[in-house]
């Protein structure tokens, strides 16, 4: 019996920012969904990408490895990456593994969008 993932991934745009909503668990089962969503927004020319986490009770090291893979692609494609919506615990985990060096962490989507808009205006 395989216990399937419980992650819903969707993509939307707000003020020129590509937002990837990740609702649920981020584990090894999430790889295809997350990478597909990232390729989708990149193919549409996204410069600013926000991973917007919601209801994420479980992000494990395999999930973190998927996100490190996204950072690799973001650097290659000269995009900016941020994350929002993480619990205090997972914000700590992201800092622990070093992801916070490569993706700004914001409390919520609104805060992230405002920061991206400021960066876009200054560019």
């Amino acid at each position: 019996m395989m216990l399937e993932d419980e992650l819903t991934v969707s993509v939307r745009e707000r003020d020129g920012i590509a937002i990837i909503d990740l609702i649920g668990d981020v584990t090894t089962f999430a790889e295809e969904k997350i990478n597909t969503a990232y390729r989708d927004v990149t193919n549409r020319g996204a410069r600013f990408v926000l991973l917007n986490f919601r209801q994420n009770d479980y992000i494990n090291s395999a999930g973190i490895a998927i996100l490190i893979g996204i950072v690799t692609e973001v650097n290659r494609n000269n995009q900016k990456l941020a994350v929002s919506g993480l619990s205090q615990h997972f914000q700590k985990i992201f800092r622990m593994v070093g992801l916070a060096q490569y993706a700004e962490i914001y409390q919520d989507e609104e805060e992230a969008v405002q920061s991206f808009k400021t960066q876009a205006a200054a560019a």
Partner: protein
Amino acid sequence: MISTSEHTTSMELSFPSELGFEVIARDAVAAFARRMGLAADRVEDLKTALSEACINAIEHGNSLSPGTRVAVVCHCDAERLLVEVHDQGLQSYTPKGDPLSISDKLAGLGPLRGMGLMLIAQLTDESGYRSDGEAGNCFWLAYFRQPVVGCR
């Protein structure tokens, strides 16, 4: 199974060695830890550390082999909560030195995965490994019930 002696309360779980079942063990052990009075933020740490230990048992100790099982044993006494994760030892544990940093991983110097042991070390008060011989490997995680100088 839960048992209580004069000084120790224990709980034992056994589950199929398949990815995803670690979530069930995690939730059960988290409930046990809350019942034993572990602080909420330490319960969150325990959930992540235990998940990583179970994944190691499933992927490495049991080599993702169908039919194998993982056992989780919790002991709580006045001093600490001890959680042991047992696999069947199809592979023995071999320390690989310090994990690669994220910058090394981004530079392509190694696999993107492999942060589980680092998370376990950082999210526990104490942790370690012992071989149980032919019975398999055991990773253990410990949380002190009272703040101890030198521990988080």
